[in-house]
């Protein structure tokens, strides 16, 4: 527990990171409970109220940020959209982290033929711009919620795979591994009981940045018309749908765009802080400054 306490003390020291953490917590909370208060406001078109301007209160609280091209209150849509946006990102990051981490453990620990296959597959994915890979796969599978998650996960797998492998390569030469081995521990046991706990923190740091990357990648997919399809929607899809109105009804694309910026910026700031904490030399620097 003292490690966690230290982490919190460090977080409190870095006001930027602390702010980012609070913002993220609020957004996640909103995504979790918000939709219960919104009911069908977010999806019900009202053609009489198309593109109503923001900061007008007479239509009710949810119209505070204006309405979109079909007269739906943007605030309500932001809340429901948060669920899809963060849901997709969470699912994609967890998938790629688990699969990438697992494959990385294997590729790092074993020199058999399948390790080579894994590495070459990672090379293939890495050597190809992820957006285009996503496009081809989505055309093959069809654009749906699950498929968007799968595609985003696939394109991020190599990052985790390579990081894990690099860590395992280093760790497997350490004393405690040889010790475990000499005591007759099986390879899976060594991998999962002894090595993986040491790899997870590194992966978690990458995951924070990746979360931001995935949100932005999803918005690019929406821009190109291959994100998730209505009636489901993400912030990225909202920006993409509203971009044609930037000169006449700026708010349609502005608010969801702002949410993306706030969320990804917070994630980036947090991961910047996490890297600092993870690196003892930097931590020394930060602590010494605070004294």
């Amino acid at each position, binding site marked *: 527990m003292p490690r966690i306490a230290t982490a919190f003390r460090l977080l409190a020291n870095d006001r930027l990171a602390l702010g980012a953490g609070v913002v993220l917590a609020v957004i996640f909370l909103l995504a979790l409970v918000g939709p219960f208060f919104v009911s069908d406001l977010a*999806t*019900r*078109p009202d*053609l*009489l109220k*198309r593109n109503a301007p923001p900061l007008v209160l007479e239509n009710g609280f949810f119209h505070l940020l204006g309405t979109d*091209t*079909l007269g739906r209150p943007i605030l309500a849509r932001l809340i429901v959209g948060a669920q899809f946006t963060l849901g997709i990102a969470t699912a994609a990051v967890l998938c790629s982290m688990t699969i990438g981490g697992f494959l990385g453990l294997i590729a790092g620990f074993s020199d058999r033929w399948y390790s080579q296959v894994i590495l070459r597959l990672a090379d293939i994915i890495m050597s190809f711009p992820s957006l285009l890979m996503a496009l081809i796969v989505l*055309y093959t599978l*069809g*654009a749906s919620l699950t498929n968007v998650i799968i595609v985003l996960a696939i394109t991020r797998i190599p990052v985790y795979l390579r990081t894990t492998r690099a860590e395992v390569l280093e760790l497997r030469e350490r004393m405690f591994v040889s010790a475990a081995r000499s005591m007759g521990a099986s390879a899976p046991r060594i991998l999962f009981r002894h090595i993986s706990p040491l790899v997870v923190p590194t992966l978690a740091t990458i995951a924070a940045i990746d979360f931001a990357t995935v949100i932005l990648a999803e918005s690019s997919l929406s821009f190109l*018309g291959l994100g998730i*399809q*209505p*009636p489901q929607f993400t912030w990225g899809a909202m920006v993409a*749908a509203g*971009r*044609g*109105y*930037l*000169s*006449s*009804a700026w708010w349609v694309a502005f608010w969801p765009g702002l949410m993306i910026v706030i969320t990804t910026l917070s994630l980036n700031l947090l991961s910047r802080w996490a890297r600092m904490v993870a690196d003892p030399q930097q931590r020394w620097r930060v602590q010494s400054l605070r004294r």
Partner: protein
Amino acid sequence: MPSVTRLMKLTLLASAMSVVAGPALAQESAITVVLPEQVSNLDPCNASNSHVGRVVTQNITETLTRLNPEEGEANPLLATEWEQVDELTWRFTLRDDVSFQDGNPFNAEAAAFAINRLMNQAITCASRSKLSNLVMIPEVIDEHVLEVRTEVPMPILPTLMSLVMMVSPDTPMDENTNEPVGTGPYQLADYTPEQVVLERFEGYWGDQPEVEQATYVWRSESALRAAMVETGEADLAPVIAIQDATNPETDFAYLNAETTRFRIDLGVPPLDDVRVRKALNLAIDWEGMATLFGPDVLRAAQMVIPGVLGHNAEIEPWPYDPDEARRLLEEARADGVPVDTELNVIARSGNYPNSQEATEAMVAMWSDVGIQSRITTVDAAGWTEYLNKPFPEDRGASLLMQMHDNVTGDAVFTVPLSYASDGQYSTVNDPEIDELIAQARAATGEERAELFGEVFRRVHDEIVAEVTMFHMVGYTRVGPRIDWEPTVTTNSQIPLADISLND
């Protein structure tokens, strides 16, 4: 801080450059046109694809006849007159003062070559595909007289000749080309992945147009196209979105010959019940829907625009009557029709401006009267699979988004495809309709118009095979340097000769 001063110098330099690089003062009579999509090839045979046709048609290559969209009939162009010789044969008399841009004379032989090239299966030719399997056999009678024979009677052949581009006899016969040579007032000067440049052809047989040079560029974002005309980077943006058409001084609306609908899958319950199909039409707030497409759209009751031979002006479009829709559904439910089945609404992404929004709005309105549906969004390729027979097995009770254009001036390019039992994308299976269509195809003039009009009426009032939506409107932005107004054919051609320059 030396770096700061340098930075300031750079900024100053940059702003100075921007003054110099303002709107380039090219030739006085050169214009720039900004199109919505890349001109990806220039084969005149593909001119029925709008991205090719907007550049090529009536600019580089011309046709024997030119369609008058208001009356739906053919006017002379490279042919001066024509007559029907027998049921299967038409005779065209050609102009004798025309030559191609490469110096070849235009005569019956050249016209025959152009028709044969269009019919040649060795090349990809969108115009041939558009003519749905029509076989034309040209025969040279003398230097300036040509006969064209068809395998089936084709009373509107002169109108169809407005789709056949007359290309130079030196055009490769068995290969597609990107170097079109025709008889038109402009010839190709440059073609790169970034632009197409046309220059005035000094040897043109008709009047010399005002515009000397036209550069075509393409940008996919509508806002950008509109902005380019505003900043003077372009003089004409033929297609912009309704939300960008904000300046009444420069922006024009025009009926663009496109009509939208949802095709109803008549074979699958609950859509096999006419009450459910009527309810689908009655449930939509058509006035509200029109706000998505602009104040100038026309509510449609059939899939061809007024002016097309066969358009029936007497059909009343379905009104907005949600109560009646609910009543009909209840009635159907009482008779055991599975009205609660979830319908599959198939939407094609980016089919037309605001198509996605329109679909979402309609699904919500259907849900209001108690019709449940889900949206399946597909791209052009996936959509074509649903469009054409054989329909996919797993489509369910489907409604298919479709935008149909008919610029041939005759309903025969709409009706048999859409409503005959053997029609390529018809969901109607009705012997009486088939009989009517067969009669209409063989008839001419008034009688033809009436018969096709009757098909449209029955399909709309009695069969209710579709949810017809709107005759669509396009928006165009015209810069202050030029004088031009869009017409119903603007989606398929922009004759530069129609553009005059303001001083």
